[in-house]
Protein backbone atom coordinates (compact mmCIF):
# COMPACT_ATOMS: atom_id res chain seq x y z
CA UNK A 1 0.00 0.00 0.00
CA UNK A 2 2.77 2.32 0.99
CA UNK A 3 4.75 1.56 -2.15
CA UNK A 4 1.79 2.17 -4.44
CA UNK A 5 1.10 5.45 -2.82
CA UNK A 6 4.68 6.49 -3.38
CA UNK A 7 4.70 5.42 -7.03
CA UNK A 8 1.60 7.48 -7.69
CA UNK A 9 3.16 10.50 -6.11
CA UNK A 10 6.29 10.11 -8.24
CA UNK A 11 4.23 9.86 -11.41
CA UNK A 12 2.26 12.97 -10.63
CA UNK A 13 5.32 15.07 -10.07
CA UNK A 14 7.32 13.77 -13.01
CA UNK A 15 6.24 16.45 -15.53
CA UNK A 16 6.79 19.09 -12.87
CA UNK A 17 10.24 17.70 -12.12
CA UNK A 18 11.06 17.79 -15.84
CA UNK A 19 10.03 21.44 -16.05
CA UNK A 20 12.19 22.28 -13.05
CA UNK A 21 15.10 20.41 -14.61
CA UNK A 22 14.76 22.25 -17.92
CA UNK A 23 14.46 25.62 -16.23
CA UNK A 24 17.52 24.88 -14.12
CA UNK A 25 19.39 23.81 -17.22
CA UNK A 26 18.71 27.08 -19.03
CA UNK A 27 19.45 29.20 -15.98
CA UNK A 28 22.77 27.41 -15.39
CA UNK A 29 23.71 27.63 -19.05
CA UNK A 30 23.00 31.35 -19.13
CA UNK A 31 24.79 31.94 -15.85
CA UNK A 32 27.76 29.97 -17.14
CA UNK A 33 27.91 32.22 -20.19
CA UNK A 34 28.27 35.34 -18.08
CA UNK A 35 30.59 33.81 -15.48
CA UNK A 36 32.93 32.41 -18.09
CA UNK A 37 32.91 35.66 -20.05
CA UNK A 38 35.92 36.00 -22.31
CA UNK A 39 37.11 32.45 -21.76
CA UNK A 40 34.37 31.20 -24.08
CA UNK A 41 34.90 33.95 -26.63
CA UNK A 42 38.65 33.91 -27.27
CA UNK A 43 41.34 31.30 -26.99
CA UNK A 44 44.59 32.05 -25.21
CA UNK A 45 46.02 33.62 -28.34
CA UNK A 46 43.12 36.02 -28.54
CA UNK A 47 41.46 34.40 -31.51
CA UNK A 48 37.65 34.27 -31.46
CA UNK A 49 36.20 30.83 -30.72
CA UNK A 50 33.31 29.31 -32.64
CA UNK A 51 32.04 27.84 -29.37
CA UNK A 52 31.45 31.30 -27.91
CA UNK A 53 29.79 32.61 -31.01
CA UNK A 54 27.34 29.74 -31.27
CA UNK A 55 27.06 29.16 -27.51
CA UNK A 56 23.33 29.74 -27.22
CA UNK A 57 22.67 27.68 -30.32
CA UNK A 58 24.49 24.74 -28.74
CA UNK A 59 22.71 25.28 -25.42
CA UNK A 60 19.34 25.38 -27.20
CA UNK A 61 20.14 22.21 -29.15
CA UNK A 62 21.01 20.30 -25.97
CA UNK A 63 17.99 21.80 -24.24
CA UNK A 64 15.80 20.50 -27.04
CA UNK A 65 17.30 17.00 -26.71
CA UNK A 66 16.74 17.13 -22.97
CA UNK A 67 13.14 18.28 -23.46
CA UNK A 68 12.50 15.49 -25.95
CA UNK A 69 13.90 12.93 -23.51
CA UNK A 70 11.74 14.34 -20.71
CA UNK A 71 8.69 14.05 -22.95
CA UNK A 72 9.59 10.44 -23.66
CA UNK A 73 9.92 9.74 -19.95
CA UNK A 74 6.54 11.31 -19.19
CA UNK A 75 5.01 9.38 -22.07
CA UNK A 76 6.56 6.12 -20.87
CA UNK A 77 5.34 6.61 -17.33
CA UNK A 78 1.81 7.34 -18.57
CA UNK A 79 1.78 4.31 -20.83
CA UNK A 80 3.30 2.20 -18.06
CA UNK A 81 6.15 1.24 -20.38
CA UNK A 82 9.57 0.44 -19.03
CA UNK A 83 12.53 2.63 -19.71
CA UNK A 84 16.00 2.86 -18.27
CA UNK A 85 15.63 6.47 -17.17
CA UNK A 86 12.27 5.86 -15.54
CA UNK A 87 13.59 2.83 -13.66
CA UNK A 88 16.48 4.90 -12.39
CA UNK A 89 14.14 7.65 -11.21
CA UNK A 90 11.80 5.18 -9.50
CA UNK A 91 14.69 3.44 -7.81
CA UNK A 92 15.94 6.78 -6.59
CA UNK A 93 12.55 7.81 -5.22
CA UNK A 94 12.00 4.46 -3.50
CA UNK A 95 15.45 4.12 -2.03
CA UNK A 96 16.51 7.66 -1.27
CA UNK A 97 15.63 7.17 2.39
CA UNK A 98 17.84 4.09 2.58
CA UNK A 99 20.61 5.96 0.76
CA UNK A 100 20.34 8.78 3.26
CA UNK A 101 20.48 6.36 6.19
CA UNK A 102 23.51 4.54 4.79
CA UNK A 103 25.37 7.78 4.10
CA UNK A 104 24.64 8.93 7.64
CA UNK A 105 25.76 5.61 9.08
CA UNK A 106 29.06 5.58 7.20
CA UNK A 107 29.72 9.13 8.18
CA UNK A 108 28.75 8.72 11.83
CA UNK A 109 30.49 5.38 12.27
CA UNK A 110 33.74 6.80 10.98
CA UNK A 111 34.39 9.19 13.84
CA UNK A 112 32.16 7.58 16.44
CA UNK A 113 34.88 6.65 18.89
CA UNK A 114 37.35 9.43 18.33
CA UNK A 115 37.59 12.42 20.63
CA UNK A 116 37.80 15.11 18.00
CA UNK A 117 35.19 13.45 15.80
CA UNK A 118 34.09 15.36 12.76
CA UNK A 119 36.90 17.86 13.31
CA UNK A 120 39.24 15.31 11.73
CA UNK A 121 37.68 15.91 8.34
CA UNK A 122 38.92 19.43 8.70
CA UNK A 123 42.22 18.73 10.44
CA UNK A 124 43.36 15.93 8.16
CA UNK A 125 43.89 17.92 4.96
CA UNK A 126 45.26 20.82 6.98
CA UNK A 127 47.90 18.70 8.70
CA UNK A 128 48.79 16.81 5.51
CA UNK A 129 49.14 20.12 3.76
CA UNK A 130 51.44 21.52 6.44
CA UNK A 131 53.67 18.43 6.33
CA UNK A 132 53.84 18.37 2.56
CA UNK A 133 54.35 22.10 2.39
CA UNK A 134 57.31 21.93 4.75
CA UNK A 135 58.80 18.98 2.90
CA UNK A 136 58.37 20.26 -0.61
CA UNK A 137 59.11 23.91 -0.09
CA UNK A 138 62.42 22.90 1.50
CA UNK A 139 63.30 20.14 -0.93
CA UNK A 140 62.29 21.51 -4.25
CA UNK A 141 62.25 25.26 -3.93
CA UNK A 142 59.31 25.13 -6.24
CA UNK A 143 58.65 28.18 -8.33
CA UNK A 144 54.89 27.65 -8.39
CA UNK A 145 53.12 30.88 -7.53
CA UNK A 146 50.97 30.46 -4.40
CA UNK A 147 52.26 26.96 -3.71
CA UNK A 148 50.03 26.58 -0.61
CA UNK A 149 46.79 26.82 -2.54
CA UNK A 150 48.21 24.85 -5.48
CA UNK A 151 49.20 22.03 -3.13
CA UNK A 152 46.02 22.11 -1.09
CA UNK A 153 43.74 21.74 -4.12
CA UNK A 154 45.70 18.67 -5.15
CA UNK A 155 45.65 17.17 -1.66
CA UNK A 156 41.94 17.78 -1.07
CA UNK A 157 40.94 16.25 -4.39
CA UNK A 158 43.30 13.33 -4.18
CA UNK A 159 42.43 12.42 -0.61
CA UNK A 160 38.78 12.40 -1.55
CA UNK A 161 39.54 10.09 -4.45
CA UNK A 162 41.65 7.81 -2.30
CA UNK A 163 39.15 7.70 0.58
CA UNK A 164 36.11 7.22 -1.65
CA UNK A 165 37.66 4.42 -3.71
CA UNK A 166 39.06 2.65 -0.66
CA UNK A 167 35.69 2.75 1.08
CA UNK A 168 33.86 1.90 -2.12
CA UNK A 169 36.15 -1.05 -2.72
CA UNK A 170 34.98 -2.76 0.47
CA UNK A 171 31.36 -1.67 0.18
CA UNK A 172 29.91 -4.90 -1.21
CA UNK A 173 32.14 -7.29 0.72
CA UNK A 174 31.59 -5.62 4.06
CA UNK A 175 27.83 -5.61 3.63
CA UNK A 176 27.69 -9.37 3.05
CA UNK A 177 25.24 -9.95 5.89
CA UNK A 178 22.80 -7.52 4.31
CA UNK A 179 23.15 -8.65 0.73
CA UNK A 180 22.51 -12.29 1.57
CA UNK A 181 19.56 -11.59 3.84
CA UNK A 182 17.49 -8.74 2.40
CA UNK A 183 16.80 -7.52 -1.11
CA UNK A 184 18.35 -4.11 -1.57
CA UNK A 185 19.62 -2.73 -4.87
CA UNK A 186 23.31 -3.42 -4.57
CA UNK A 187 24.63 -0.29 -6.26
CA UNK A 188 23.38 1.62 -3.23
CA UNK A 189 26.38 0.44 -1.18
CA UNK A 190 29.23 1.85 -3.32
CA UNK A 191 27.20 4.99 -4.02
CA UNK A 192 26.52 5.62 -0.33
CA UNK A 193 30.18 5.15 0.55
CA UNK A 194 31.26 7.67 -2.06
CA UNK A 195 28.61 10.15 -0.95
CA UNK A 196 29.63 9.88 2.70
CA UNK A 197 33.23 10.58 1.68
CA UNK A 198 31.87 13.50 -0.31
CA UNK A 199 30.64 15.05 2.94
CA UNK A 200 34.23 14.88 4.15
CA UNK A 201 35.33 16.36 0.86
CA UNK A 202 33.03 19.36 1.40
CA UNK A 203 34.32 19.87 4.94
CA UNK A 204 37.92 19.71 3.75
CA UNK A 205 37.10 22.59 1.42
CA UNK A 206 37.12 24.83 4.52
CA UNK A 207 40.90 24.73 5.03
CA UNK A 208 41.23 25.37 1.32
CA UNK A 209 39.12 28.53 1.57
CA UNK A 210 41.07 29.58 4.63
CA UNK A 211 44.33 29.18 2.75
CA UNK A 212 42.86 31.23 -0.09
CA UNK A 213 41.95 34.03 2.29
CA UNK A 214 45.32 33.99 4.04
CA UNK A 215 47.33 34.01 0.81
CA UNK A 216 45.06 36.79 -0.53
CA UNK A 217 43.83 34.98 -3.59
CA UNK A 218 41.64 37.38 -5.51
CA UNK A 219 38.08 36.10 -5.29
CA UNK A 220 36.05 36.50 -8.46
CA UNK A 221 32.73 35.19 -9.71
CA UNK A 222 34.55 32.30 -11.33
CA UNK A 223 34.57 30.62 -7.91
CA UNK A 224 30.96 29.73 -8.74
CA UNK A 225 32.35 27.22 -11.25
CA UNK A 226 33.88 25.17 -8.44
CA UNK A 227 30.86 22.81 -8.10
CA UNK A 228 31.41 21.66 -11.68
CA UNK A 229 34.83 20.21 -10.86
CA UNK A 230 33.56 18.77 -7.60
CA UNK A 231 30.56 17.05 -9.16
CA UNK A 232 32.72 15.60 -11.94
CA UNK A 233 35.12 14.19 -9.34
CA UNK A 234 32.28 12.62 -7.35
CA UNK A 235 30.81 11.06 -10.50
CA UNK A 236 34.23 9.68 -11.42
CA UNK A 237 34.67 8.20 -7.94
CA UNK A 238 31.25 6.53 -8.12
CA UNK A 239 32.28 4.92 -11.40
CA UNK A 240 35.58 3.72 -9.94
CA UNK A 241 33.87 2.36 -6.82
CA UNK A 242 31.37 0.42 -8.90
CA UNK A 243 34.21 -1.24 -10.81
CA UNK A 244 36.37 -1.89 -7.75
CA UNK A 245 33.62 -3.17 -5.48
CA UNK A 246 32.45 -5.74 -8.01
CA UNK A 247 36.02 -6.82 -8.77
CA UNK A 248 36.62 -7.19 -5.04
CA UNK A 249 33.85 -9.77 -4.72
CA UNK A 250 35.60 -12.11 -7.12
CA UNK A 251 39.23 -11.40 -6.32
CA UNK A 252 40.17 -10.31 -2.84
CA UNK A 253 43.65 -9.39 -4.10
CA UNK A 254 42.23 -6.17 -5.40
CA UNK A 255 42.42 -4.51 -1.98
CA UNK A 256 46.18 -4.97 -1.76
CA UNK A 257 46.72 -4.20 -5.41
CA UNK A 258 44.68 -1.04 -5.06
CA UNK A 259 46.95 0.27 -2.30
CA UNK A 260 49.89 0.12 -4.67
CA UNK A 261 47.96 1.47 -7.63
CA UNK A 262 46.60 4.42 -5.70
CA UNK A 263 50.09 5.29 -4.53
CA UNK A 264 51.32 5.18 -8.11
CA UNK A 265 48.30 7.25 -9.08
CA UNK A 266 49.24 9.87 -6.51
CA UNK A 267 52.73 10.28 -7.94
CA UNK A 268 51.37 10.34 -11.49
CA UNK A 269 49.08 13.23 -10.63
CA UNK A 270 50.60 16.71 -10.37
CA UNK A 271 49.71 17.27 -6.72
CA UNK A 272 52.89 18.69 -5.25
CA UNK A 273 54.97 19.21 -8.38
CA UNK A 274 54.29 21.57 -11.27
CA UNK A 275 52.97 20.21 -14.53
CA UNK A 276 56.01 21.62 -16.29
CA UNK A 277 58.37 18.96 -14.90
CA UNK A 278 56.47 16.22 -16.74
CA UNK A 279 58.30 15.08 -19.87
CA UNK A 280 56.60 16.60 -22.90
CA UNK A 281 56.43 13.41 -24.94
CA UNK A 282 54.63 11.66 -22.09
CA UNK A 283 51.97 14.36 -21.71
CA UNK A 284 49.27 12.47 -23.64
CA UNK A 285 49.71 9.63 -21.15
CA UNK A 286 49.30 11.95 -18.15
CA UNK A 287 46.23 13.46 -19.72
CA UNK A 288 44.53 10.06 -19.62
CA UNK A 289 44.36 10.51 -15.88
CA UNK A 290 40.88 11.85 -15.03
CA UNK A 291 42.10 13.40 -11.80
CA UNK A 292 44.56 15.53 -13.75
CA UNK A 293 41.66 17.25 -15.50
CA UNK A 294 39.57 17.83 -12.38
CA UNK A 295 42.50 19.21 -10.41
CA UNK A 296 43.72 21.37 -13.28
CA UNK A 297 40.21 22.75 -13.77
CA UNK A 298 39.88 23.67 -10.11
CA UNK A 299 43.33 25.20 -9.85
CA UNK A 300 42.68 27.27 -12.95
CA UNK A 301 39.49 28.70 -11.45
CA UNK A 302 41.01 29.47 -8.07
CA UNK A 303 44.46 30.67 -9.04
CA UNK A 304 43.63 32.48 -12.28
CA UNK A 305 40.29 33.76 -11.10
CA UNK A 306 38.82 32.97 -14.50
CA UNK A 307 37.12 30.19 -16.36
CA UNK A 308 39.29 27.69 -18.26
CA UNK A 309 38.83 27.18 -21.98
CA UNK A 310 35.69 25.35 -23.19
CA UNK A 311 37.73 22.24 -23.98
CA UNK A 312 38.52 21.79 -20.26
CA UNK A 313 34.81 21.41 -19.48
CA UNK A 314 34.42 18.78 -22.16
CA UNK A 315 37.47 16.86 -20.95
CA UNK A 316 36.21 16.91 -17.37
CA UNK A 317 32.84 15.57 -18.43
CA UNK A 318 34.43 12.80 -20.48
CA UNK A 319 36.79 11.96 -17.61
CA UNK A 320 33.81 11.70 -15.25
CA UNK A 321 31.13 10.01 -17.29
CA UNK A 322 33.16 7.45 -19.25
CA UNK A 323 34.38 5.72 -16.06
CA UNK A 324 30.83 5.94 -14.69
CA UNK A 325 29.43 4.24 -17.79
CA UNK A 326 32.06 1.51 -17.58
CA UNK A 327 31.32 1.10 -13.86
CA UNK A 328 27.58 0.82 -14.41
CA UNK A 329 28.13 -1.72 -17.16
CA UNK A 330 30.54 -3.90 -15.14
CA UNK A 331 28.36 -3.71 -12.03
CA UNK A 332 25.18 -4.59 -13.88
CA UNK A 333 26.84 -7.55 -15.55
CA UNK A 334 28.21 -9.01 -12.34
CA UNK A 335 25.75 -8.07 -9.59
CA UNK A 336 23.62 -11.20 -9.81
CA UNK A 337 26.67 -13.32 -9.07
CA UNK A 338 27.63 -11.38 -5.94
CA UNK A 339 25.49 -13.47 -3.60
CA UNK A 340 27.04 -16.67 -4.89
CA UNK A 341 30.64 -15.53 -4.57
CA UNK A 342 30.64 -13.31 -1.57
Amino acid at each position, binding site marked *: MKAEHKAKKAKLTLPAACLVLLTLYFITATALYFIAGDAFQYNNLGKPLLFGRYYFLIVAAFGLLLALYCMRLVHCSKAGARSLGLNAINAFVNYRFLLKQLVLRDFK*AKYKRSVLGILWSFLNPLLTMIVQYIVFSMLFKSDIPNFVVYLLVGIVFFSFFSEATNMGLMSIVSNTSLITKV*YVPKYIFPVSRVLSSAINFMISMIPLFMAMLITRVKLSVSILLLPFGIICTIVFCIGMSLILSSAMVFFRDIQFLWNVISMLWMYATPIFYPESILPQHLMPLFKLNPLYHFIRFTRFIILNGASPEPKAYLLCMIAAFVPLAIGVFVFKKTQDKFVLNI
Partner: protein
Amino acid sequence: MIKVENVSMKFLIMHDRIRSLKEYTVALLKRRLKYEEFWALRNVSFEVRRGEVMGIIGRNGAGKSTLLKIISGILKPTEGKVKTGGNIVPMLELGSGFDLDLTGRENIFLNGAILGYSEDFLKSKYDEIVEFAELEKFIDVPIRNYSSGMLMRLAFSIATVVNPEILIVDEILAVGDEAFQAKSKARMMELMGGGTTVLFVSHNIEQIRELCNRVIWLDEGRIKMIGDKNEVCNAYRTVNICPQ
Protein backbone atom coordinates in the same frame (compact mmCIF):
# COMPACT_ATOMS: atom_id res chain seq x y z
CA MET B 1 0.00 -13.38 -4.56
CA ILE B 2 3.13 -15.34 -5.34
CA LYS B 3 3.59 -17.24 -8.57
CA VAL B 4 6.62 -19.46 -9.01
CA GLU B 5 7.10 -20.88 -12.51
CA ASN B 6 9.57 -23.66 -13.28
CA VAL B 7 12.23 -22.29 -11.00
CA SER B 8 15.58 -24.08 -11.00
CA MET B 9 18.67 -22.99 -9.17
CA LYS B 10 22.12 -24.23 -10.00
CA PHE B 11 25.13 -23.65 -7.79
CA LEU B 12 28.66 -24.22 -8.95
CA ILE B 13 30.66 -25.78 -6.21
CA MET B 14 34.39 -25.39 -6.51
CA HIS B 15 36.44 -27.86 -4.59
CA ASP B 16 38.94 -25.22 -3.60
CA ARG B 17 37.36 -21.84 -3.28
CA ILE B 18 39.44 -19.61 -5.51
CA ARG B 19 39.65 -16.15 -4.11
CA SER B 20 42.77 -14.63 -5.57
CA LEU B 21 44.13 -13.95 -8.99
CA LYS B 22 47.20 -16.03 -8.28
CA GLU B 23 45.22 -19.08 -7.29
CA TYR B 24 43.00 -18.62 -10.31
CA THR B 25 45.91 -18.50 -12.75
CA VAL B 26 47.61 -21.44 -11.12
CA ALA B 27 44.42 -23.48 -11.27
CA LEU B 28 43.83 -22.43 -14.84
CA LEU B 29 47.33 -23.42 -15.89
CA LYS B 30 47.09 -26.75 -14.13
CA ARG B 31 43.67 -27.21 -15.76
CA ARG B 32 42.24 -27.86 -12.36
CA LEU B 33 39.42 -25.36 -12.60
CA LYS B 34 36.72 -27.90 -11.99
CA TYR B 35 33.29 -27.06 -10.88
CA GLU B 36 30.70 -29.42 -9.64
CA GLU B 37 27.13 -28.59 -10.50
CA PHE B 38 24.61 -28.73 -7.75
CA TRP B 39 20.93 -28.19 -8.37
CA ALA B 40 19.42 -26.80 -5.22
CA LEU B 41 16.02 -26.50 -6.88
CA ARG B 42 14.65 -28.17 -9.96
CA ASN B 43 11.50 -27.19 -11.80
CA VAL B 44 9.62 -25.86 -8.84
CA SER B 45 6.23 -24.37 -9.70
CA PHE B 46 3.41 -23.37 -7.43
CA GLU B 47 1.10 -20.53 -6.67
CA VAL B 48 0.14 -18.94 -3.39
CA ARG B 49 -3.10 -17.04 -3.48
CA ARG B 50 -3.69 -13.77 -1.70
CA GLY B 51 -4.25 -14.26 2.00
CA GLU B 52 -3.16 -17.87 1.97
CA VAL B 53 -0.66 -19.28 4.47
CA MET B 54 1.62 -21.73 2.70
CA GLY B 55 3.92 -23.96 4.72
CA ILE B 56 7.14 -25.43 3.39
CA ILE B 57 8.59 -28.55 4.95
CA GLY B 58 11.53 -30.74 4.06
CA ARG B 59 14.75 -32.05 5.47
CA ASN B 60 17.90 -29.99 5.85
CA GLY B 61 19.34 -29.17 2.45
CA ALA B 62 16.07 -29.73 0.62
CA GLY B 63 16.20 -26.22 -0.85
CA LYS B 64 13.78 -24.42 1.45
CA SER B 65 15.98 -21.46 2.25
CA THR B 66 17.11 -21.16 -1.37
CA LEU B 67 13.47 -20.98 -2.42
CA LEU B 68 12.73 -18.27 0.14
CA LYS B 69 15.76 -16.29 -0.99
CA ILE B 70 14.69 -16.51 -4.62
CA ILE B 71 11.18 -15.31 -3.78
CA SER B 72 12.58 -12.43 -1.71
CA GLY B 73 14.70 -11.37 -4.69
CA ILE B 74 18.04 -11.98 -2.97
CA LEU B 75 18.99 -14.75 -5.38
CA LYS B 76 18.24 -14.79 -9.07
CA PRO B 77 17.04 -18.20 -10.29
CA THR B 78 19.09 -19.95 -12.98
CA GLU B 79 15.90 -20.78 -14.83
CA GLY B 80 12.29 -19.86 -14.41
CA LYS B 81 10.39 -16.88 -13.12
CA VAL B 82 8.93 -15.59 -9.91
CA LYS B 83 6.08 -13.11 -9.86
CA THR B 84 5.05 -11.37 -6.68
CA GLY B 85 2.42 -8.74 -6.14
CA GLY B 86 2.92 -6.36 -3.25
CA ASN B 87 5.62 -5.49 -0.80
CA ILE B 88 7.55 -8.37 0.69
CA VAL B 89 8.95 -8.45 4.18
CA PRO B 90 11.45 -11.27 4.42
CA MET B 91 12.11 -12.37 7.98
CA LEU B 92 15.01 -14.64 7.19
CA GLU B 93 17.26 -13.23 9.84
CA LEU B 94 16.59 -10.49 12.31
CA GLY B 95 18.72 -7.44 12.69
CA SER B 96 20.76 -7.72 9.53
CA GLY B 97 22.28 -4.34 9.00
CA PHE B 98 22.51 -3.32 12.61
CA ASP B 99 25.49 -1.11 13.26
CA LEU B 100 26.93 -1.69 16.71
CA ASP B 101 28.37 1.80 16.99
CA LEU B 102 25.05 3.53 16.47
CA THR B 103 22.38 4.04 19.10
CA GLY B 104 19.13 2.13 19.26
CA ARG B 105 17.30 5.11 17.81
CA GLU B 106 19.66 5.41 14.86
CA ASN B 107 19.46 1.67 14.24
CA ILE B 108 15.67 1.75 14.11
CA PHE B 109 15.89 4.14 11.18
CA LEU B 110 18.78 2.33 9.50
CA ASN B 111 17.24 -1.13 9.80
CA GLY B 112 13.80 0.20 8.87
CA ALA B 113 15.22 1.78 5.72
CA ILE B 114 16.89 -1.50 4.82
CA LEU B 115 13.57 -3.30 5.19
CA GLY B 116 12.10 -0.76 2.78
CA TYR B 117 10.01 1.36 5.14
CA SER B 118 9.54 5.02 4.32
CA GLU B 119 10.72 7.83 6.54
CA ASP B 120 7.21 9.04 7.41
CA PHE B 121 6.10 5.53 8.26
CA LEU B 122 9.05 4.99 10.60
CA LYS B 123 8.55 8.32 12.31
CA SER B 124 4.90 7.55 12.96
CA LYS B 125 5.66 4.05 14.24
CA TYR B 126 8.80 4.93 16.18
CA ASP B 127 7.13 5.02 19.61
CA GLU B 128 5.33 1.79 18.92
CA ILE B 129 8.59 0.03 18.06
CA VAL B 130 10.37 1.27 21.18
CA GLU B 131 7.43 0.40 23.38
CA PHE B 132 7.10 -3.10 21.97
CA ALA B 133 10.82 -3.73 22.41
CA GLU B 134 10.61 -2.39 25.99
CA LEU B 135 13.78 -0.40 25.44
CA GLU B 136 12.64 3.11 26.39
CA LYS B 137 15.52 3.54 28.84
CA PHE B 138 18.28 2.37 26.54
CA ILE B 139 17.22 3.79 23.20
CA ASP B 140 19.99 6.41 23.10
CA VAL B 141 22.73 3.99 24.09
CA PRO B 142 24.96 2.50 21.36
CA ILE B 143 23.69 -1.02 20.76
CA ARG B 144 27.22 -2.32 21.30
CA ASN B 145 26.23 -2.22 24.98
CA TYR B 146 22.97 -4.12 24.54
CA SER B 147 22.56 -7.67 25.72
CA SER B 148 21.79 -10.21 23.01
CA GLY B 149 18.21 -10.45 24.21
CA MET B 150 17.78 -6.69 23.92
CA LEU B 151 19.19 -6.75 20.39
CA MET B 152 16.78 -9.45 19.31
CA ARG B 153 13.86 -7.60 20.89
CA LEU B 154 14.73 -4.45 19.00
CA ALA B 155 15.20 -6.33 15.73
CA PHE B 156 11.92 -8.19 16.15
CA SER B 157 10.00 -5.03 16.90
CA ILE B 158 11.32 -3.28 13.82
CA ALA B 159 10.67 -6.22 11.52
CA THR B 160 7.09 -6.79 12.65
CA VAL B 161 5.84 -3.22 12.93
CA VAL B 162 4.70 -3.28 9.32
CA ASN B 163 1.71 -5.10 7.88
CA PRO B 164 3.20 -6.47 4.67
CA GLU B 165 1.28 -7.94 1.77
CA ILE B 166 3.68 -10.86 1.60
CA LEU B 167 5.46 -12.18 4.64
CA ILE B 168 8.28 -14.70 4.34
CA VAL B 169 9.16 -16.44 7.58
CA ASP B 170 11.98 -18.87 8.22
CA GLU B 171 10.93 -20.52 11.50
CA ILE B 172 8.70 -18.74 14.01
CA LEU B 173 10.84 -16.24 15.76
CA ALA B 174 10.32 -16.38 19.43
CA VAL B 175 13.00 -14.24 21.04
CA GLY B 176 13.91 -12.81 24.42
CA ASP B 177 12.73 -13.93 27.85
CA GLU B 178 9.60 -15.89 28.49
CA ALA B 179 7.26 -12.92 28.64
CA PHE B 180 8.64 -11.46 25.45
CA GLN B 181 8.53 -14.83 23.73
CA ALA B 182 4.83 -15.05 24.38
CA LYS B 183 4.35 -11.50 23.17
CA SER B 184 6.39 -12.02 20.02
CA LYS B 185 4.65 -15.26 19.21
CA ALA B 186 1.30 -13.53 19.58
CA ARG B 187 2.50 -10.79 17.24
CA MET B 188 3.60 -13.35 14.66
CA MET B 189 0.23 -15.08 14.83
CA GLU B 190 -1.49 -11.75 14.43
CA LEU B 191 0.63 -10.96 11.35
CA MET B 192 0.09 -14.35 9.82
CA GLY B 193 -3.63 -14.35 10.49
CA GLY B 194 -4.29 -10.84 9.27
CA GLY B 195 -5.03 -11.59 5.63
CA THR B 196 -1.42 -11.39 4.50
CA THR B 197 0.03 -13.92 2.12
CA VAL B 198 2.53 -15.95 4.11
CA LEU B 199 5.27 -18.36 3.16
CA PHE B 200 6.31 -20.21 6.26
CA VAL B 201 9.22 -22.58 6.66
CA SER B 202 9.40 -24.70 9.78
CA HIS B 203 10.64 -27.99 11.10
CA ASN B 204 7.90 -27.95 13.65
CA ILE B 205 5.15 -29.99 12.04
CA GLU B 206 2.65 -29.13 14.78
CA GLN B 207 3.10 -25.42 14.09
CA ILE B 208 2.63 -26.03 10.38
CA ARG B 209 -0.58 -27.91 11.02
CA GLU B 210 -1.79 -25.16 13.30
CA LEU B 211 -1.06 -22.21 11.03
CA CYS B 212 -1.08 -23.17 7.36
CA ASN B 213 -3.74 -23.74 4.76
CA ARG B 214 -1.62 -25.70 2.35
CA VAL B 215 1.82 -27.27 2.55
CA ILE B 216 4.66 -27.93 0.12
CA TRP B 217 7.04 -30.78 0.78
CA LEU B 218 10.42 -30.21 -0.77
CA ASP B 219 12.81 -33.08 -1.23
CA GLU B 220 16.24 -32.68 -2.84
CA GLY B 221 15.14 -29.61 -4.70
CA ARG B 222 11.92 -30.98 -6.10
CA ILE B 223 8.36 -30.69 -4.96
CA LYS B 224 7.51 -34.11 -3.62
CA MET B 225 4.03 -33.22 -2.61
CA ILE B 226 1.79 -30.19 -2.46
CA GLY B 227 -1.70 -29.92 -1.07
CA ASP B 228 -3.80 -29.98 2.05
CA LYS B 229 -1.81 -29.61 5.28
CA ASN B 230 -2.97 -32.82 6.92
CA GLU B 231 -2.31 -35.01 3.89
CA VAL B 232 1.17 -33.64 3.31
CA CYS B 233 2.14 -33.61 6.98
CA ASN B 234 0.98 -37.20 7.46
CA ALA B 235 2.89 -38.37 4.39
CA TYR B 236 5.99 -36.48 5.56
CA ARG B 237 5.74 -38.01 9.03
CA THR B 238 5.55 -41.57 7.68
CA VAL B 239 8.72 -41.10 5.63
CA ASN B 240 10.72 -39.17 8.19
CA ILE B 241 9.97 -41.13 11.30
CA CYS B 242 11.51 -39.69 14.38
CA PRO B 243 13.36 -42.20 16.56
CA GLN B 244 11.31 -41.27 19.60
